């Protein structure tokens, strides 16, 4: 099982705190997935149609989505035939390998596009209640710890209490927040924030936006306008447009990725609330069909509960109990 070994090696190289945090956060996800996976392998020793049907269900129950699951199952069937795998236990590593492959592109490092010199502008978009403001707070904390000078723009001028919420995060983390009154034009807030970032010599500007459902044309136009304002002021910006997706979301996340992508050229995804039982399998489908990478993962409500997304670690999280068992053998 070379692939598991590779994962394991990579994992032990990483600092313990990072991997522990990730494992801890993913406990629920991993437990349910790998237990089910183990049960599946135990109940169906032979690789046959029935086994694949069960596997299909396991993946669907993680919100991976029908289209992607079908494609994946086809690939696995081919692989099983090619390598003449009859034993389900042997197929396990192929499954996780294919999953990791799906999330991972060889030449990609998944890190945020932070400029070496000058101002980096990051725009956060997403539907209501996914955790945009919280994510900004956590990311600000993370970046500040890395020694960056961070500024926040309170671009959610619509929802009651949104500006105050970002303000509290600013205080907690110790970074400035540029804000206007509730109800004012969010593009104007962003404009002011850029000017202020310049005069303060900030390294990174994180722009909050109001949550909006992707089928509201006017609100999507408003987002486009915000992006235009950033582009006009910072010609190579925004350097990242991050779509925040709630891990409990089902197939609608695909529609979110598509339509926010159209309006703002989403460059990456932040998957939040992954510390529950939701598995966030929809990111597999989004990667598969739209090719948008996941860049950050939210694993809890605390300030340091935001992690960079590493596909191998993600898959390791899903399968770690299987891998550990494998080691014991």
């Amino acid at each position, binding site marked *: 099982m070379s692939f598991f070994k590779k994962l394991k090696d990579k994992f032990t190289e990483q600092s313990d705190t990072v991997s522990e945090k990730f494992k801890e956060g993913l406990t629920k996800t991993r437990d349910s997935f790998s237990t089910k996976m183990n049960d599946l392998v135990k109940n169906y020793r032979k690789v046959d149609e029935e086994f694949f049907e069960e596997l299909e269900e396991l993946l669907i129950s993680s919100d991976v989505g029908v289209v992607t699951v079908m494609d994946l199952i086809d690939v696995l069937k081919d692989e099983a035939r090619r390598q003449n795998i009859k034993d389900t236990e042997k197929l396990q590593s192929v499954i996780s390998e294919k999953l990791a492959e799906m999330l991972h592109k060889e030449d990609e490092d998944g890190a945020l596009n932070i400029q070496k010199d000058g101002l980096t502008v990051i725009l956060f978009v997403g539907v209501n209640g996914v955790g945009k403001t919280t994510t900004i707070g956590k990311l600000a904390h993370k970046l500040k710890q890395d020694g960056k000078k961070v500024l926040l723009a309170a671009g959610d001028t619509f929802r009651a209490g949104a500006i105050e919420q970002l303000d509290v995060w600013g205080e907690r983390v110790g970074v400035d927040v540029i804000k206007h009154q509730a109800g004012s034009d969010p593009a104007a807030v962003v404009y002011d924030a850029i000017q202020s970032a310049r005069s303060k010599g900030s390294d990174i500007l994180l722009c909050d936006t109001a949550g909006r459902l*992707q089928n509201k044309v006017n609100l999507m136009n408003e987002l486009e306008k915000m992006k235009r304002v950033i582009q006009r002021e910072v010609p190579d910006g925004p350097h990242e447009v991050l779509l925040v997706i709630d891990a409990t979301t089902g197939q609608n996340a695909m529609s979110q990725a598509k339509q926010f992508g159209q309006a703002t050229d989403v460059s990456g995804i932040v998957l939040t609330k992954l510390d529950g039982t939701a598995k966030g399998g929809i990111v597999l489908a989004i990667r598969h069909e739209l090719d948008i990478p996941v860049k950050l993962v939210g694993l809890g409500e605390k300030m340091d509960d935001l992690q960079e997304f590493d596909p191998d670690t993600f898959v390791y999280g899903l399968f770690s109990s299987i891998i550990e068992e494998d080691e014991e053998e």
Partner: protein
Amino acid sequence: MAFEGLADRLQGTLQKIRGKGKVSEADVKEMMREVRLALLEADVNFKVVKEFIKRVKERAVGQEVLQSLTPGQQVIKVVHEELKDLMGGEQSKIAVANRPPTVIMMVGLQGAGKTTTTGKLANHLRKKHNRKPLLVAADIYRPAAIQQLETIGKQLSMPVFSLGDQVSPVEIAKQAIQKAKEEHNDYVIIDTAGRLHVDEALMNELEEVKEAVKPDEIFLVVDAMTGQDAVNVAESFNNALGVSGVVLTKLDGDTRGGAALSIRSVTDTPIKFAGMGEKLDALEAFHPERMASRILGMGDVLTLIEKAQSTVDEEKAKELEKKMRTMSFTFDDFLDQLDQVRSMGPLDELLDMIPGMNKAKGMKNINVDDKQIGKVEAIIRSMTKDEKLHPEVINASRRKRIALGSGTTVQDVNRLLKQFEEMKKMMKQMTNMQKGKKKGKGFNFPFMQ
């Protein structure tokens, strides 16, 4: 593509059957596969789907479908009926305590929309039931959650009870009820912090609040976009607290909302309300039948019809029908229609409800802009009485004048005139068609009655 309705899905299978004249059991099996996929794509939990398919299949393999001439439609009908049954009847009643105040507790995951729903519910109670609710800010964890509820309270001019974020939710809830008694508030709505259903400490806290205030209703607020995990969430909250009703939020999005079915089948708790927008009056009673159509991708025609019925004047409609038949439909009538349609709500919202008009299905180019209607209105209002009655008199110089008067261009005027002519023709065809036997079939837009 990801978002196909059941009808679209069944098309392929049906095409194969069409030549055969008879439907075999294998065909039904294939159709059931499509039904299964449609439900899974709508985010109905796979276990729920399994059970459901079993039941539908029994009916389908029985006489009902095999012998019918239109097996495809029959399958959709059976599926729709079963879905409807599973979803239960309509129940949007809210409990009334024998001794006021009636206490409602709002619970759910983070970001489901509890605080907004708290405001909407309070508004609903005041508007529809003439009640005097007190809002209680018991979310002491999320930054600015209290301010959020206070802002909503201000918008509604309703009292909000809070003790800051240093007092325990149990204490806040207890004192709030005392306060409600003093101030004669007959309803108390407690907004609790969002929490994960696996967070034992926080779930215990909810149980303590429940123990302390003995709520008459516990509403679980669930995001309509929730995927397969909806069953776990609903089950956990229900097991811990005994949920009395569900509020499904963000249903104004383009999600299929299969979570509704999942929640229903694992908790057997009625879904009472649906959140339909960000405004504080955007709370509607939950309609199981419409939800069934929506999950199947059949559009929300019923809501649209209801909206039309509540806004369209019956008398006017009759008069209009006559006009349409005799081709004497004028610009004045058109203006009237525009007003009526507009009073039903934003146009893109209306279009979303019509089956096949779903934007996710390649209709992206049609961006309905309410401003466009404003333009049309301006053009018509710039016409003289005579021009409105007899558009054929509008010549080049009149066009120029109308464009000038309405702040539009001659091209805009031309376009409208042409569209109006075409519309008149279409109306005539429609009314002719309806005089035939097709009555009652298909959807009637208000001016097509």
